[in-house]
């Protein structure tokens, strides 16, 4: 298994994650950034499950690891979260922007913990 193949698996995961994120964003058409919040929470949950799973007695190929790590990163987004928080401050209120930041942090942290807890 070449290193190039492993990079390709990571990129494949990232590309698929980005497509699923955008598909969900088109489905959840709301003026508040619920779609970004949802993908970040779901992605954090998946990453928690995956880290917990890999921490157990499992024999799993490097390509599967790269695929899922690539997917989680491509599915979740920090840049849109930051930009949308900025837009909330400009177009709505500072409270909404701060709320988006705090709720995203708390829910994603809890989702990661939940994933780790469920699998271990």
């Amino acid at each position: 298994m070449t290193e190039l193949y492993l990079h390709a698996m990571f990129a494949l995961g990232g590309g698929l994650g980005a497509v699923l994120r955008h598909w969900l964003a088109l489905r959840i058409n709301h003026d508040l950034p619920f779609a970004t919040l949802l993908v970040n929470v779901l992605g954090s949950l998946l990453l928690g499950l995956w880290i917990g799973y890999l921490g157990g007695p499992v024999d799993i190929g490097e390509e599967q690891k790269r695929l899922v790590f690539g997917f989680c990163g491509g599915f979740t987004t920090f840049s849109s979260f930051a930009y949308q928080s900025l837009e909330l401050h400009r177009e709505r209120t500072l409270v909404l922007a701060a709320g988006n930041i705090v709720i995203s942090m708390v829910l994603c942290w809890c989702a990661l913990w939940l994933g780790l807890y469920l699998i271990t």
Partner: protein
Amino acid sequence: MAKPRILMFLAVFTGGAAGSLVREAFSLEIPGLPFLTATFGINIAACFVLGWLYSVRHRVHAHVLHLGAVGFCGGLSTFSSFVAELERLAIGNIWSVPAAAGLEIAFGLAAAVIGENLGRRVHGDRHRI
């Protein structure tokens, strides 16, 4: 109607894959700086690029935004690894967590504003944010 949709998702996929490769190459732990996550550099860079792209969003084709903003910036930045990194930092020192989170978010917001302002300046639009 189906063809633009396929092109849109193809652009998002290509950008996401490219962004992920850059993320894989540049996600680096910085020894001796417990208040910085390994995702710090890539997340800030993605915010800067996203701000720049949004400054020209009315002038470029929608697929450029799908490729660059939705795909590349989304693939380059990551929230799940950011949270997992905070979890890693919490094991060493719990006070690193609010410091690292606050720094990364503050720098991310600043990078988006700087990217947007620079983009407007470079591309001729002088509207202030």
